[in-house]
């Protein structure tokens, strides 16, 4: 399970400063913020804007453009199911339905107890051993109902 730090102004500035020497540093900064705090909090937007000498609207525009950046923290575990064509061809639809049924929430949502966020992902590049999934960064291929159940049990533990 990933561990995130509680929000701190000082820590956020330190994380951002680490990438200030790069050309085009905003994306690496945003990734680092999310890796540190588990999401991209609103409070970081003006900090980035000031650091990079751009408007807050521009930073907000970037944060909201990319699917990876979370506005809210995710559940304790994140289960991503590949929903792209190769996984669909190999039975991914039925597995996605099965996961939604087992977790009691739709793709893109978090279970009521806050334990598991289940999301679609568009291609892990494991298309010859489809369907595939990713649980908190761990990749799993040749997914079937039994393996998916094991992943869900791991996520719910």
């Amino acid at each position, binding site marked *: 399970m990933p561990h995130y730090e509680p929000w701190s102004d000082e820590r956020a500035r330190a994380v951002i400063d680490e990438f200030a020497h*790069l*050309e*085009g*540093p*905003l*994306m*690496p900064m*945003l*990734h680092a913020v999310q890796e540190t705090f588990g999401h991209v909090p609103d409070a970081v937007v003006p900090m980035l804007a000031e650091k*990079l000498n751009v408007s807050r609207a*521009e930073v907000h*525009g*970037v944060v909201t*453009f*990319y*699917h*990876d*950046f979370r506005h809210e923290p995710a559940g304790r575990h994140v289960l991503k199911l590949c929903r*792209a*064509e*190769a*996984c*669909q*061809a*190999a*039975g991914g639809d039925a597995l996605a339905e099965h996961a939604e049924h087992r977790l009691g929430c739709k793709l893109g949502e978090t279970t009521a107890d806050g334990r598991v966020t289940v999301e679609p*992902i*568009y*291609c*892990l*590049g*494991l*298309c*010859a*051993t*489809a369907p*595939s999934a*990713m649980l908190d*960064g761990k*990749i*799993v*291929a*040749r997914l079937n109902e039994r393996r998916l159940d094991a992943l869900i049990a791991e996520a719910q533990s």
Partner: protein
Amino acid sequence: MSTNSGTIRIYVPKDACAIACGADEVAEAIAAAALAARQPVEIVRNGSRGMLWLEPMIEVVTDEGRIAYGPVEAGDVDGLFAAGFLTGGDHALRIGKPEEHPFLAKQTRLTFARCGIIDPASYEDYRAHGGYRGLERALTLGPAGIIEEVKTSGLRGRGGAGFPTAIKWKTVADAKGDQKYIVCNADEGDSGTFADRMIMEGDPFELIEGMTIAGIAVGATKGYVYTRSEYPHAIWAMEKAVEVARANGMLGANIAGSPYSFDMEVRMGAGAYVCGEETALLDSLEGKRGTVRAKPPLPAHKGLFQKPTVINNVLSLTAVPHILADGGQFYADFGMGRSRGTMPIQIAGNVKFGGLFETAFGITLGELVNDIGGGTATGKPVKAAQVGGPLGAYVPTWQFDLPFDYEAFAAKDALIGHGGIVVFDESSDLAKMARFAMEFCSVESCGKCTPCRIGSTRGVELMDKIIAGDRVTANLATLTDLCQTMKLGSLCALGGFTPYPVLSALNHFPEDFGAPPRVVLEAAE
């Protein structure tokens, strides 16, 4: 080779596909079993050979060469030890020499020659297997000579557009700029493609060498590899290799003691498919929304930070070291028509023997799907294959004589794209896939142009009506019209090519859309 101390070398891939199938657990089990047996072993984490249905495929070095076993699960390891696999002993999972396996023996491996054979983190291994021969020759040829060699090879952009690489390089070489860049498009978002991922994980120095040669050719001193957050293993492998190359004087100032300098960084996207479009990628690298730019100006003139930029796909850049090492003509001698050299083709989806198959252009789709891929994994008849990712056409079985060639595919309203083939069996519903194509476009559209942003949303609505059986004939006419607008009016390939999967599905499988079947339509004509 078994060393004198009696240490046996075992290869266990750390390709993401192998890991996802349990390779890490297999490596641990081997280490534990060897310790228990008091047998010293050296476990090398190589890339994948590309026979992905056999992953994790482990190899043991014996007196007769490398002997492979697969697919191995951690639970198989004790049995393998009992069967004497350390000396190539017989076992139900024994494959024999990998290079003699028909799937590999039938290939022409130039770009993937080393992939799965070497330790991807080892500079010495790369050198020992012909690495940096291309760069050495490039240094003797100089910029103009390099571009001439690439021109002779006939190399065309492997990202999908098929634009001649040498022309792009010449344009950047001739452009004036205090700073020029080499950008590698490793944003391999197409479903059914994994060649970029595999080569970055299995032979990352080849990409570094290719980018360095490109840098020397055009006068660029800085390079970026832009890859996907969905590819953490590829990012680790690339970053490690960059570090090792730098430590060996192959990146940085005065590469290999030459007057040329070149360094590079690996950057990660954030889950936006459209960033695989080159100008959106450049904006993303600059720290902006991944919005498509209008062309001109071309990236070759005003690319990254408005500086002259070569932006090439991973497979274009990794073809370069080979072209320089053995000469452009050697490469050009493979292929057909204007499609020269080899293409690493990826066979995926519902297929029995999925994997990476590098071969000269000209092989037919049927050979790839049926003979090499072995048909569907489910055993049901093949219905269609989508070639070229989410923007590629669905090719029906009656067009499987189509040769893998840019022009031949274009003539059938299809595209090779990045060389990915996704196989579907007869249970698939292509109306649903057409709806998915529109939905994917609507989710991933950068929003800059109307045909893509609004058209895809309208496309989803139309497909919902068609699937529900609501005024099918009228709605199909509107869908066809909408596809024309998207095709002709979109700024980039996302909106412009989404009609390919939609219209190919409709034209070949109208019965899935509630229209009369194709045979009936043809008889009526």
